[in-house]
């Protein structure tokens, strides 16, 4: 991050913009704003932002539609602001290609954390998927397919390892059930979430100090799972 990341803030509510823009600027981001979907799409082309914060309830274009159009031409991370309670909306934007979501009303730190995670993904994308990753107590060695908690090795089945590796590589970021199923079992398994529930149960038993109150492998109810930001 040699130069400040540029964030495009898209929200039709003036108050949200007036509150969020100074917050983001204060953290060193370069902020551009848009109030409609058309403006946002134009800004994506003209300003090439490093990240988009997108409100789903825009007056002119559906949020999902904006995600789809942005994805069609760019891989820029999208963090969605959702005011509706509807989980299906979140899942569908995540499946279309949004990177994460925050539900209103959110606190500033929550949004900032999501933005950091999404940006880190961009700036670390070129790195090899191999190597060793240490998050909190947990260390994962992609090359040797080993997982350590502290000094103690945890024995995982291949599928458990894949799931943990996937979540840790995307630590802090929500992965939808669908995305996980597709990555581990293939595209035919996306409608069989029970595979995932069972596997997650097993993995938590091995990895979590207290499987009933997970601190690493967090559920996002109705949406997916997230490896805790540590």
């Amino acid at each position, binding site marked *: 991050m040699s130069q400040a990341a540029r964030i495009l803030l898209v929200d039709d509510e003036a108050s*949200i913009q007036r509150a969020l823009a100074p917050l983001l600027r204060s953290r060193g981001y370069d902020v551009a704003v848009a109030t409609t979907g058309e403006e946002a799409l134009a800004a994506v082309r003209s300003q090439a932002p490093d990240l988009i914060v997108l409100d789903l309830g825009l007056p002119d274009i559906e949020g999902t539609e904006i995600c789809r159009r942005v994805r069609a031409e760019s891989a820029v991370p999208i963090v969605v602001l959702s005011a509706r309670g509807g989980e299906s909306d979140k899942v569908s934007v995540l499946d279309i290609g949004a990177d994460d979501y925050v539900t209103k009303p959110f606190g500033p730190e929550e949004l900032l954390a999501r933005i950091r995670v999404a940006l880190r993904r961009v700036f670390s994308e070129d790195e090899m998927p191999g190597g060793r990753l240490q998050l909190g107590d947990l260390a994962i060695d992609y090359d040797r397919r080993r997982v350590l908690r502290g000094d103690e090795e945890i024995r995982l089945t291949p599928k458990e390892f894949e799931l943990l590796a996937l979540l840790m590589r995307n630590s802090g970021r929500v992965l939808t059930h669908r995305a996980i199923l597709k990555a581990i079992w293939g595209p035919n398994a996306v409608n069989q979430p029970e595979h995932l529930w069972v596997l997650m149960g097993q993995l938590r038993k091995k990895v979590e100090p207290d499987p009933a109150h997970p601190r690493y492998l967090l559920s996002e109810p109705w949406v997916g799972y997230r490896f805790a930001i540590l």
Partner: protein
Amino acid sequence: MSQSFARRDALILALALAAIVAVTAAFRVGLHLTNPTTAALSYLLIVLVTAAASTLWAAIAASCVADLCLNYFFMPPFGTFTIADPQNWAALFAFLAVSVIASNLSAAVRDREREATARHDELARLFDLSRDILLTTDSRDAIPQLALFISRRFDLAFAAICLPRGSDWDVFDAGTLSVTLDPTQLSEAFRAADRALEFDARARTYAGHRTARVDGRTVHVVPLRLGTKPVGLLAAAGRAIEPGALDAIAGVSAIAIERTQFLEERKSAEIARRNEELKSALLASLAHDLRTPLTAIRVAASNLQASWLADSERRDQSDVILVEVERLHRLFQNVLDMARIDAGAVAAERQWVHPSEIFEAAREQVEQTIRDRPIEVVSESDLLVRVDPRLTAAALAHVLENAAQYTSGGSAIEVRLTAASDGLTMTVRDHGPGIGAGDLPHLFDRFYRGAGAARRVAGTGMGLAIARGMLIAEQGRIWAENCAGGGAQFSIVVPAESRPTASAEQTA
């Protein structure tokens, strides 16, 4: 009715006797004919015509008279009832037998025809009754209506539907006659109907028919059955109706009663469904309308705590908070008003005000929304009106807010205030896209959002419904229309007393 029948039969019998006399006279005096065969055939013709036109008894009476005439005038020795030739005894007896049997046959055919006509008539009445029942869609007074239909369609001076309610009876009666039914008798008939279900093939009725004597009148009581189970009783008086027909009426009535219950259930299910829908609509829009201001407030407040803000930015952040708190306050006020309107807790307190005061109060309430709109106000008369200023201003405020929200920024809003002797009229005209034809009928419904507007404009769909609710509390009206030159116009009318202002009085 039976009396007029008897009179008609007597008349036909008299005509038949006259015809017999005429034939006798014509044959004996005019034609000097004495052939008994010719006379007998002529008499037989008269008897048959009588049988066809009237009752069996009239025909038999005519046969007997004809038989006597045949004997007296046409069988030797003439002029006496004595018969010389024994062969003529046989002829006379044969004539009587033939005429009686022929009369019988003819009368039987007539009876059958009469019965068929009666059935047809009964069927037509039943058809009319069932059509009446099917056309009844309001469940509230369907059962009194049913009694009325029965009494009207079957020419009954008294018809009553009796439905058991615990040990007591709900009696819905109709007709010109008033008969007080005895509940104990009804209960007894009902119990009997519950116990026995037999079909009497000859009378074509089911068991359970009763007749009661009330005030010297015969009242027929028939069980109303759904399937085999009695659900009530039908009482009828004023005209003799065949038991089979009564059964048929009772059957149709039972279906009508079941239909009524079904209609009622459907109505309450519909109301429950609508309430459920309204509730979820409210929750969804509240969720949206609460979360956005809360987010802005939360972020702005934490910004204010941070040390990195410049003074000017600090003011801006607190401004954000104030604006959003105001918005939340207004939302909260709307929810409260809605609840009060629902509970019927809005009462008008009228006082003398000038229309422009009402406009000023309304403008103040929605200052945030209409701040940057050019508003043109025309106040047409200088009368004071006696209205509830709070309710009227709140209603106008909602209409103004609505006009500002649903038209593009910068377009003008025109307000016209007219106080007249019969009340206050206020119109708000905008230059927006107008109101969609599909939206017009629902504009003032609770939580209704215009098609497409639901996404474009934030709102809960409460404003106009509240405006209407408040105006109803002071007998006012509100309606909307599209203007010929584009844009929409909302009109509010509050009936009220009016008087000139003090200053106008002084100058007068």
